[in-house]
């Protein structure tokens, strides 16, 4: 398992013209849309209506567009969470678990330090969110650095555990006594709610996401560590002989990556939900991994793919309402997009 495959984050996206890349990207996307339309047709749903509904409810109005931005926040953070470890060919598929752990840690801070003023409380829960996700990912990082367990399988397994931990708290010790029937925590104090902008749900997390993306770009292209990581990624054995501490890189990158996914969880419970509840994520962590894969570790690519998948994620809710099909059906569309990328020439690299 340890050497299985070459993960995302290779360099093949570089060196191509942007326009050509965009056209190719658009073509692949078109194929994916057509294939998904076919699936809907087979199941007796109207694909034209599906696409029209998705379009008019996302890009068709200012509010719809703002909702796409709202979805982009956790997706971008989760994508960087996968892209950063991918620099040394680590496969972090644990964004989902790290997201939930970040939400859990942040909720602990929000519930127990409610009396703090916002200018203190918000940095505090942001830190806690980062810490929660980071520590969760560090488990997998440690197991991998020791050569014991492939991070792919451990992050996947820990996703399920993290969601159960969160359920344990909201069904048990943290359950709000005021809400007799709903498993959810007490609402957070106002000071623990991330501020939002322009009367929409777009919140401070957007800044976090953009900063994370810029940090990611500068880190990989402008720093010594970024260069060393390329060396680790290209040839671990040579890197080891040159005195690059691979184990430490593995754990550090997993921690920071997981931390970013945790930050996404924090932002989501604080700004969107205002309390801890079940099903706070429609799979942000997994979708983030897909984005990172699609973007080949390129920061601008992450932004573009996050935008695209934010529309699709929002589309899941819309299809559920207008076509009465399960929201998870958009998983098919995501899978098809991945298929066309994987099946094109050189998809293995």
């Amino acid at each position, binding site marked *: 398992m340890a050497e299985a495959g070459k993960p995302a984050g290779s360099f093949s996206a570089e060196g191509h013209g942007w326009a050509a890349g965009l056209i190719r990207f658009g073509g692949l996307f078109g194929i994916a849309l057509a294939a998904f339309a076919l699936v809907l047709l087979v199941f007796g749903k109207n694909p034209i209506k599906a696409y029209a509904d998705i379009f008019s409810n996302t890009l068709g109005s200012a509010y719809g567009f703002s909702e796409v931005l709202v979805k982009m926040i956790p997706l971008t953070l989760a994508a960087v969470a996968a892209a950063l470890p991918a620099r040394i060919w680590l496969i972090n598929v644990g964004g989902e678990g790290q997201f939930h752990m970040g939400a859990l840690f942040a909720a602990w801070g929000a519930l127990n330090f409610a009396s703090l003023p916002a200018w203190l409380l918000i940095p505090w829960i942001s830190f806690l969110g980062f810490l929660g996700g980071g520590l969760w990912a560090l488990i997998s990082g440690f197991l991998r650095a020791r050569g014991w367990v492939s991070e792919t399988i451990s992050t996947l397994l820990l996703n399920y555990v993290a969601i159960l931990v969160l359920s344990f708290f909201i069904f048990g010790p943290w359950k709000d006594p005021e809400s007799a029937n709903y498993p959810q925590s007490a609402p957070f104090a106002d000071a623990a709610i991330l501020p939002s902008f322009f009367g929409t749900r777009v919140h401070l997390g957007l800044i976090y996401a953009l900063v994370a993306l810029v940090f990611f770009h500068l880190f990989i292209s402008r720093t010594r560590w970024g260069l060393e990581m390329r060396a680790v990624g290209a040839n671990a054995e040579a890197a080891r002989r040159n005195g690059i501490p691979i184990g430490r890189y593995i754990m550090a990158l997993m921690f920071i990556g997981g931390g970013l996914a945790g930050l996404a969880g924090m932002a989501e419970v604080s700004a969107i939900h205002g309390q801890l509840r079940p099903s706070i994520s429609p799979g942000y962590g997994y979708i983030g991994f897909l984005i990172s894969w699609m973007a080949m570790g390129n920061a601008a690519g992450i932004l573009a793919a996050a935008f695209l998948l934010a529309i699709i994620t929002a589309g899941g809710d819309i299809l559920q309402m207008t076509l009465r099909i399960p929201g998870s059906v958009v998983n098919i569309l995501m*899978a098809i997009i991945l298929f066309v990328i*994987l099946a094109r020439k050189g998809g293995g690299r």
Partner: protein
Amino acid sequence: MESILIGLLVGSVHSGTPLLYATLSEVISERAGIVNLGLEGVMLMGAAAGFATTALTGNAALGVLAAALAGGLFNLFFGFLVITRRANQLASGLAMMFCGVGLSALLGVSFVGSKINGLDEVRIPLLSDLPFAGPMFFNYDILVYLAGPIAVLVWWVLFSTRWGLSLRTVGENPTAAFAAGKNPYFLQYQALFIAGMLGGIAGAHLSIALAKTWQEWMTAGRGFIAVALVIFSKWHPLWAVFGSLLFGGAIALQLQMQAMGVPISPFLLDMLPYLLSLGVLAVWGGARRFAAPGSLGRVFQGTE
């Protein structure tokens, strides 16, 4: 006390059966050099196709057949990606998982709430009336009885037939297999189809024999647990029987404790199989890596 113990053992067998089919599926594909993280999706496709067929026809045997076919075809598409298109196996597997989650949800949506009779228990006459041993060994559905023999069959085919030898050669060193006049691609496709059928049956056992209702994402990570079980079993079909019973036991223990009203949160108990997988991998993973097929996860680039 005795009834609790029997309940636990019976539960281990029930919960272990889908795990065993799934693990055998992964053993076959990994022996051919292909890691299939899409197993979760294969199982879901099998569970949904099997349930839908059973609900429509009222015939559980047809349901199992449909599940096997759905799983096999689903895996063939995975094969197209990783064999013909030489795509990355892990990313392709995850994409297949997503696809399985979505497709099975779409397929199952009209069956939410419908009940089926499912696979009946086959009571073995006389033996099933024995005290203790009766309920413990002789009162299961047909898929449970078949699971063990199928594991033996897989073992025999992989290790004692010419075809199995070729398959394992492809998994160890596809270039050598190619040089020996075998077609690695064709063998891998065959392996994936058979593995897909077993994965589909694993899902069908969950939906037709155990749950008897349809629920979105009802496999709940069992596909990934099976991937861990393969490592635990050292890629060996017979060890897989033992591993599946052990992990089935973890699931059964949790159900049994909940039924008895043990005052531990069910969410903590639910973690047991996942943590057990991780723990087992951590202990096993360091020492037994060498049991893995040599070319696992690598893409055979042809010989040109």
